[in-house]
């Protein structure tokens, strides 16, 4: 019954999405006022999608094996939290989550957006409905999550053990909130291009949505990076894997949009560019979803390839993005650009930021898809690896991080006050870091060395916008910006320190033997069997010390039975200045065990920085929401983020 109720809710939601779209057409063609009606329809449609998703969670919670999806992806002996997480750890469930987030975002947009002009709101809600309609059709015709299995099997097939991890419970839903949250910016841009009302009012309506989606993307990517770091047991935090890139590309576009939207909101300039970015940001989310769900690119995120589903998703992508870009090409000429600005100004700084972010986005886009095109044109198989991305995107990112220290100090329109003096302290700090690393670590690579230098520069320069006036009276949005920019410096320091100072040891050790890595001495006490709820494991008992104190680490090699899989559970000890990362491998047959050790100084700063960037976004969002309540004052001119 529950599964049927979920399916019924899905059909009803699809019907309402169709109605919502028809209302939009009627409003635009017959100039009828359908504002109230279309908003109610959008809210009910979102509620129905939520009901459908709740029903899916329910059948997974009860392990109802008569539902084909549950039988294929769950198991009665699985811990409860992973039964729930299993609902979106598969194709159909994750697509239902996708469309649910899309519809709920549309419902909130309809409910909250009183400030958008009536006609643009109706057009945007119609565009949102058109998006939802395609994905409902996809679920109902090609990926029904509620299909029954008769007779029901006695036991389910289990969930990929790599995914049985607290990280999975939060990482995909967080990323989806980010991916799909950008749909509101897309719909607003399409709506505004239809009605021709591309102005600063639109930018202010769009900004909270972009900011919220960007926060979720930032946190989702940070969490995903940490998950890959400790769960895959490879010791790396970013692999330039196609699926990782699929989440990075919308983030880059959203970051650019987040900055250009401020120019539109404050100065009415960069209209065409901002509309294009709004379309691109969500398009990248759809490209990412397509790349992940169709399995066309080889990746550690191995999902089954299904050409029929891939074709359906590709058709949706072509229709939506193609329509939006066509609209853009036809309407871009009609946007009247706002106030002009000079070469040295806040606007110009933000244009440079946008150009650099766009070039980095292009670099990642080309690198991710190049193997596909190379094989299509020449038949040769190749892969584009970390060396390309690091050596092309790395210097651009460093240049951008350097300029982040300067941009926020410039005034709107025309910057007259010299800022060189304010930047003395950051410059001196950066120079001393550079000199110190040259003296103490002469053989460090150029990128890590510059990374440390720029991190020191940005850490000091990023807080300058709060100086020179009472920081407690600065707008919350400025605090958010400062925190986010400081977070970039922190993350950059972590990346550079990890690249420059990591020491690694791969050895075969017998019980009693001691291995050295960095400042640590690690002794293998023994290897013992152990068991969990649905796995057995061999567990190494390691004792690590660096002079004082003794840490116990117990990395495991786990064997799951349903389905039969082996995973490495790294044991990681976090100390104030880094992490000791240990992995146990196979026995060598002579009483020894493969042990892999890494000492990674300050690696934790990478994710701490990511968290700070997200937190900065949250504060800026609070600032914008709070500021809207206090009408009349034009804080927006000074507020930034």
């Amino acid at each position, binding site marked *: 019954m529950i599964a049927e109720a979920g399916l019924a809710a899905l059909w009803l939601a699809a019907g309402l999405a169709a109605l919502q779209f028809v209302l939009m057409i009627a409003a635009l063609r017959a100039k009828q006022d359908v504002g109230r009606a279309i908003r109610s329809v959008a809210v009910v449609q979102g509620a129905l999608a939520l009901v459908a998703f709740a029903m899916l969670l329910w059948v997974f919670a009860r392990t109802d094996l008569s539902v084909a999806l549950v039988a294929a992806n769950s198991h009665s002996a699985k811990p409860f939290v992973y039964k729930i997480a299993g609902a979106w750890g598969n194709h159909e469930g994750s697509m239902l989550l996708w469309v649910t987030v899309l519809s709920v975002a549309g419902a909130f947009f309809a409910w909250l957006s009183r400030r958008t002009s009536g006609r643009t709101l109706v057009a945007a809600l119609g565009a949102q409905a058109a998006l939802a309609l395609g994905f409902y059709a996809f679920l109902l015709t090609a990926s029904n999550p509620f299909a029954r299995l008769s007779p029901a099997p006695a036991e389910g097939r289990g969930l990929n053990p790599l995914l049985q991890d607290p990280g999975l419970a939060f990482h995909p839903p967080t990323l989806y909130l980010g991916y799909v949250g950008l749909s509101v910016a897309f719909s607003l841009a399409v709506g505004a291009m239809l009605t021709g009302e591309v102005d600063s009012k639109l930018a202010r309506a769009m900004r909270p949505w972009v900011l919220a989606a960007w926060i979720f993307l930032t946190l989702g990517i940070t969490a995903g990076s940490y998950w890959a770091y400790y769960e895959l047991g490879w010791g790396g935090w970013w692999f330039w894997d196609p699926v990782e890139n699929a989440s990075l590309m919308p983030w880059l576009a959203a970051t650019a949009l987040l900055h250009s939207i401020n120019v539109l909101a404050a100065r009415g300039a960069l209209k065409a560019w901002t509309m294009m970015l709004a379309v691109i940001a969500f398009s990248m989310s759809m490209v990412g979803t397509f790349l992940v769900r169709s399995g066309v690119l080889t990746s550690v995120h191995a999902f089954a390839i299904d050409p029929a589903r*891939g074709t359906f998703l590709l058709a949706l992508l072509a229709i939506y993005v*193609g329509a939006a870009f*066509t609209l853009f090409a036809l309407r*871009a000429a009609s946007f009247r650009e706002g106030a002009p600005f000079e070469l040295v100004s806040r606007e110009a700084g933000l244009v440079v930021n946008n150009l650099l972010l766009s070039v980095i986005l292009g670099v990642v886009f080309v690198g991710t898809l190049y193997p596909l095109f190379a094989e*299509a044109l020449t038949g040769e198989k190749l892969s584009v690896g970390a060396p390309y991305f690091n050596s092309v995107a790395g210097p651009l990112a460093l240049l951008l991080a350097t300029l982040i220290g300067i941009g926020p100090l410039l005034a709107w329109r025309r910057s007259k006050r010299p800022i060189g003096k304010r930047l003395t302290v950051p410059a001196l700090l950066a120079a001393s870091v550079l000199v110190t690393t040259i003296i103490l670590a002469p053989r460090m690579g150029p990128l890590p060395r510059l990374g440390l230098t720029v991190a020191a520069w940005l850490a000091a320069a990023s807080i300058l916008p709060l100086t020179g006036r009472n920081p407690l009276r600065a707008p919350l949005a400025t605090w958010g910006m400062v925190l986010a920019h400081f977070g970039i410096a922190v993350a950059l320091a972590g990346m550079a320190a990890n690249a420059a100072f990591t020491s690694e040891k791969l050895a075969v050790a017998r019980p009693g033997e001691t291995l050295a890595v960095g400042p640590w001495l690690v002794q293998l006490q023994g290897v013992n069997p152990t068991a969990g709820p649905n796995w057995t494991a061999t567990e190494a008992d390691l004792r690590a010390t660096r002079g004082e104190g003794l840490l116990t680490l117990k990395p495991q090699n786990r064997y799951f039975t349903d389905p039969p899989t082996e995973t490495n559970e790294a044991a990681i000890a976090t100390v104030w200045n880094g992490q000791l990362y240990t992995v146990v491998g196979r026995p060598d047959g002579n009483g020894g065990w493969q042990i892999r050790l890494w000492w990674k100084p300050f690696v934790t700063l990478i994710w701490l920085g990511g968290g700070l960037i997200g937190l900065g976004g949250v504060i800026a969002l609070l600032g914008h929401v709070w500021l809207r309540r206090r009408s009349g004052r034009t804080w927006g001119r000074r507020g930034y983020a």
Partner: protein
Amino acid sequence: MSRALRFVPLAVLLLLIAGLIWRLANPGDSVIRSKLEGRPVPAFALPAALPTKAGLTSADLATGRPRLVNFFASWCGPCITEVKVLQELKRRGVAIDGIAVRDRSEDVTDFLARRGDPYARIGSDLQSRVQIALGSSGVPESFVVDGKGMIRYQHVGPIKDSDVPLILAKLEQAR
């Protein structure tokens, strides 16, 4: 903004769609062919792994008829199931040579006594030198070598029952 520039995003999208349609129509073949296929076996000479059986040199592989060279080890789990399949191949007239990787003579003797011995000759590759020279990354792995000592096929992982027709076909092609 000039007129042409406004159509750039659309053009990029069309290019992307074209590429993805091509990929959906030609699903990627994730099998990477060995670079050594079609090349002669690198010269090597391995001592005997067992006191009772001859060792293996690259010259032993160019005998005028195709042979199967199998990398195995007594410490390798999948090799246990593979031996049965190798014996079935031997029963069908396939000449099989073994290379024991990083193994001790007594362990190999014990392994073959318990599981059966499909091999004509067994070389002992203590340091994995030959394994690396042949571009093999693990055990078990097998190579089809034709009568002139050319590598014709590399099989990564154990030969399963379902692979028998494939191996026989490769040996037939190498004739």
